[in-house]
């Protein structure tokens, strides 16, 4: 398959790059000279959450057959265009579920127990002069999950082990769960202390966390976002935090990564991490292997492992 052109949209993971290079003719989008010369030989695109496959890119690749995303989220892929052209799409579900769920709990604990702030307290030598003070308990608090898919369910399972009360909002009630369902996200926010965003980003869920939801969550409420930055009306969250209308936030994603609202950088009731939800050695490799397996299956006329389209 060494003559098959595969386009990588941006630097992602060295291991993935190396594996693609040995199997295919890897072309790097960030080297634009190459792209103009090779666009007709490109049959596959490997994108991620930063740079996917939009209409413009798809239109410039006349022989594109498959988009294999190094992500589970599909918001950076023009799915309608792919459907129109008969282009297959695959993603990386399941292999990253545990990592993202772990991080959601980790962010919650970091915010409530002020782990990052107290770590800084020790590193700056302040502990010598007095105690740190009180934080907030996590165990037993009520957790509301937006989106009870693979990741949302994994978060719920973990939060249950902390004796948390679980409730959720999604498009429709899920059979086979005992968690309390809210058909309206504002009601969910009004009835939980920690709101965790874990749904897919679509037109419907864009800014699903808006002013009303933030107000319902309230001055003691905590917002955790491990979905997409665009799930949340970022300026509203920022002003709510600054004005004390929201208790705190743990954010892995932002509307304009890698830009993070400056006002957040000095707040002690937020924890900010640079979109690392699935960034572990084990999971990155598993995701890469899945991308490769999907590509190899496609070019060998075998069934795709994790097709979306």
């Amino acid at each position, binding site marked *: 398959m060494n003559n098959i052109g595969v386009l990588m949209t941006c*630097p992602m*993971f*060295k291991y993935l790059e190396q594996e693609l290079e040995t199997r295919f003719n890897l072309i790097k989008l960030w080297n634009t000279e190459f792209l103009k010369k090779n666009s007709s030989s490109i049959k596959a695109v490997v994108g991620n959450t930063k740079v996917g496959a939009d209409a413009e890119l798809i239109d410039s690749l006349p022989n594109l057959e498959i988009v294999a995303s190094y992500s589970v989220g599909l918001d950076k892929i023009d799915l309608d265009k792919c459907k129109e052209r008969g282009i297959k799409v695959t993603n990386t579900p399941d292999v990253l579920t*545990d*990592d993202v769920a*772990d*991080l959601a*709990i*980790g*962010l919650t*604990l*970091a915010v409530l*127990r002020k*782990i*990052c702030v*107290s*770590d*800084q*307290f*020790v*590193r700056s030598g302040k*502990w*010598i002069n007095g*105690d*740190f*003070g*009180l*934080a*907030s*308990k*996590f*165990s*037993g608090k009520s957790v509301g999950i937006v989106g009870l898919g693979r990741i949302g369910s994994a978060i719920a*399972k*973990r939060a*249950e*082990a*902390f*004796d948390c009360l679980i409730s959720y909002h999604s498009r429709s009630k899920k059979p086979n769960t005992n968690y309390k369902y809210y058909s309206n996200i504002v009601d969910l926010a009004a009835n939980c202390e920690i709101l965790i965003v874990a749904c897919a980003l679509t037109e419907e869920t864009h800014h699903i966390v808006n002013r009303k939801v933030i107000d319902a969550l309230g001055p003691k409420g905590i917002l955790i976002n491990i979905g997409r930055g665009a799930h949340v009306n970022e300026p509203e969250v920022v002003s709510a935090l600054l004005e004390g209308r929201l208790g705190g936030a743990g954010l892995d994603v932002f509307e304009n*990564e*890698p*830009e*993070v609202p400056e006002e957040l*950088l*000095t707040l002690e009731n937020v*924890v*900010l*991490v*640079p979109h*690392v939800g699935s*960034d*572990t*050695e*084990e*999971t*990155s490799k598993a995701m890469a292997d899945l991308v490769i397996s999907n590509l190899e299956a496609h070019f060998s006329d075998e069934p795709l492992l994790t097709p979306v389209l």
Partner: protein
Amino acid sequence: MATAQEEELPLVLVHRIPNFDFPFKHRLQAQFRLLDPLDSVPPESTHSFISRHAASVRVLLCVDPTPISRDLLSLLPSLQLIVCSSAGVDHVDLIECRRRSIAVTNAGKAFSPDVADLAVGLLIDVLRRVSAGDRYVRAGLWARNGEYPLGFKILLKHQFSNAFGKRVGIVGLGSIGGEIAKRLESFGCAIGYNSRRKKPSVPFPWYKTAYDLAINSDILIVCCALTEETRHIVNKDVMVALGKGGVIINVGRGALIDEKELVQLLVQGELGGAGLDVFENEPDVPEELFSLNNVVLSPHCAVATPECFDALEELITANLKAFFSSKPLQSVVEFD
């Protein structure tokens, strides 16, 4: 001078050092007559106060780490119960208590969920570099390095590790250890433990020594009581047995780990990381740790939540009431 009303309430001797007090004192005073040498007017030494007042004292309320020595106990011939406000009781002469048949209760169950929460929080932080990531973003480095994700992000990928499937070894499977195990099982971790004796009702594999536990674990969580036997239970051999990628979390007492060896191994890259809430000489923390991104430092605040103190007040009040009505006590410390 005690009022007639106060005289009717059961008597409790309070034992504390000047910097330590407890926030719910006034609520206890509604139900018990509290004798506190530090409140004596005019000021009197503890020894003198106790000798004068408290020969008939049956209960002593010990605030946090105020030491209870054999000498102190000898001034209290009628003492039957010591109620401690901490989970650790290494500051109490338990041998003497056992000899005199003085029961000791600790904060055990009141504290366990909060301590377990912090242990898990520290573990995820170390494995997933939450605090280090937060520092990176606040320093503006994500925006600066954004277009070419070299350096931190790629470095992260080769250092970050996930919790799923990892083997967790718990040193001391008491109330706190049990709560930690329950939480980490939901993360897909395999649990093993070391304690003085195998616990027949526990489904996890038991290891006779901390060394054996470490050989069979990727993560060690230290949460046992500090006694003469457990001092430096996590020594250099145990840490080397845990291995280069191993992570240690300590929410017990600083002296459970050989701190000097721990620091050296971390600095040399011979250990994967550490999350520490306790240290050998608090509040002094080895400065070599300050520049490490695979270490998370916490100023002994595993129980520092208002809910924890509420639970403590409930437990202490319940135990005092139970004692004076001859009912069973909770959170009783087992003597060896």
